[in-house]
């Protein structure tokens, strides 16, 4: 009897932990939606931070994340290709693979410190370029990892078929292997984009923040995340409302991109 009782207790405890996990997700999403939707007006999207809106923040956040993606994707995919297709078995490839893998979990605030030393300190002022570089550094190892893993799933026979047809190595990689891994790599890019668009720590002292609308990357650059951090600590109710509105929009963006990424892979299998 004792065994059966113990069994029941453990199974019930496990189920309870799962419910607690789900409970927190809904608790966070529901409070966020209630507070967020109540704080959103039409002007929230048409005005900039100086006038109590978040237009410049959304534009700034997307601009930095998109340019960072444009930098990190080609570099990351190429590096992943090198590790899997050219360097396979070499010492350099295996060490690089491990270092890059460790970088995916490196503290994001340290990347902010690193970029500050390289691109803010010498110039003497915060700037959008520094924010972009910090985000690209966060993204690079994630893309290398997914590309590497996705290429590993492509069957060897496909490559051999390419060789048998007399294709050169880079043509086989680009036209056969990469094509076969397309869905996985795209999903990886989408998920890493969702990750960097919600980042705050790497931006705090690289792009910092800007109350005004700007496209000048040499200037301090606006972002939703850094603004939320600033606004939430102000004592007045209006700033807090704006912080909730910005938090709601940011979370929706991140979760929708995530779900889109999952939808892609689901179609594949």
């Amino acid at each position, binding site marked *: 009897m004792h*065994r*059966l009782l113990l*069994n029941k207790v453990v*199974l019930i405890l*496990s*189920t*309870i*932990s*799962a419910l607690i*996990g*789900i409970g927190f*997700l809904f608790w*966070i999403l529901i*409070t*966020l939606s209630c507070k967020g939707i109540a704080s959103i007006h039409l002007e929230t999207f048409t005005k900039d931070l100086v006038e109590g809106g978040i237009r410049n923040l959304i534009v700034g956040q997307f601009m930095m994340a998109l340019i960072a993606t444009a930098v990190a994707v080609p570099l990351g995919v*190429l*590096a992943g290709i*090198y590790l899997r*297709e*050219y360097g396979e078995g070499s010492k*350099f*490839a295996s060490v*690089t693979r*491990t*270092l*890059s*893998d*460790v*970088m995916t*979990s*490196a*503290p994001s*605030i*340290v990347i*902010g*410190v*690193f970029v500050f030393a*390289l691109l803010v300190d010498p110039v003497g002022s915060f700037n959008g370029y520094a924010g972009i570089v910090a985000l690209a550094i966060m993204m*690079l*190892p994630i893309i*290398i990892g997914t590309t590497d893993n996705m290429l*590993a799933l492509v069957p060897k026979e496909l490559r051999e078929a390419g060789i048998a047809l007399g294709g*050169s*190595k*880079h043509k086989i*990689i680009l036209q056969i292997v990469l094509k076969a891994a397309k869905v996985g790599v795209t999903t990886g890019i989408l998920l890493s984009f969702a990750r960097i668009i*919600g980042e*705050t*720590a790497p931006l*705090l*002292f690289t792009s910092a923040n800007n109350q005004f609308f700007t496209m000048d990357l040499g200037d301090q650059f606006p972002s939703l*995340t850094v603004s*939320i951090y600033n606004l*939430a600590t102000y004592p007045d109710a209006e700033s807090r409302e704006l912080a*909730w509105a910005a*938090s709601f929009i940011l*979370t929706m963006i991140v*979760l929708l991109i*995530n*779900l889109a990424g999952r939808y892609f892979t689901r179609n594949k299998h």
Partner: protein
Amino acid sequence: MGGRLFRDFSFFSATLAFFLLIGIFAVLFTYAQESMHTFGFDFLYTEIWEPGEDDEGGIFGGYIPIVGTLMSTLIAMVIATPLAMGIAIFLTEIAHEKIVKPFSVAIELLAAIPSIIYGMWGLFYFAPIVQSLFGGNGVGLLTAGIVLAIMVIPFMAAITRDSMNTTPDVLKESAYAIGATKFEVIKDVIMPYSKGGIIGSIILSLGRALGETMAVAFLVGSVMSVAGRVTDPTTSIPVLLANNFAEAQDLELSSMYFLALILFVVSFIVIASAKIYFLGRKK
């Protein structure tokens, strides 16, 4: 010709990735020199963080943020580990096939929520609850530790679930066939089989918790003193950097770089050991 160029470009990209981590270490190490020479190893157990007069000199020690980082991480791990194991067991052994998928997606979405949202939500909704249950003023080590736990649970549960799923059905079925209960199968078949992955997931989550910035910045109180009780406010390395790095100068700035270096090296050791020894490398 094109093949050569393509190969060179991809080699260049891989080299960039190789030097990224080394470059970060080198830059932090260089900028931390002034502080390292002034304080040496005393930096680790000096409780004072005081700029000198006219910004000259001053005494800076990392003890308070270092202890704050370790304590908040410890609290988070104590809470997160049993819950994450429970979720993994639920997803692999208990839940009906039809609810495994939506449940997994929900847990993974919890992992995708940006950390600043956890901080904001924690400050306005969770801190008051901690305050009414445990006293204190709401923000402090305990609040930061609990919210940190909520953040790493999905991450830990996902890796544990994946490694539990690798247990061959034949092993489980033979245990059931001799009359084992579900719990006995989990304890004596699945756990031993996926031990490496489970330990790896715990250590990797620990590495993440050490470097977490924004949620802790909202919730730990950001006060330069050691927490006497768990409900007291204190600070951590990432939080000190987030709040004071941009305004620091000279020796104080160098001490901040020193702290960043310590965090980076410790995280590297923790994460690398989890990945290399326990999680193995994907082929």
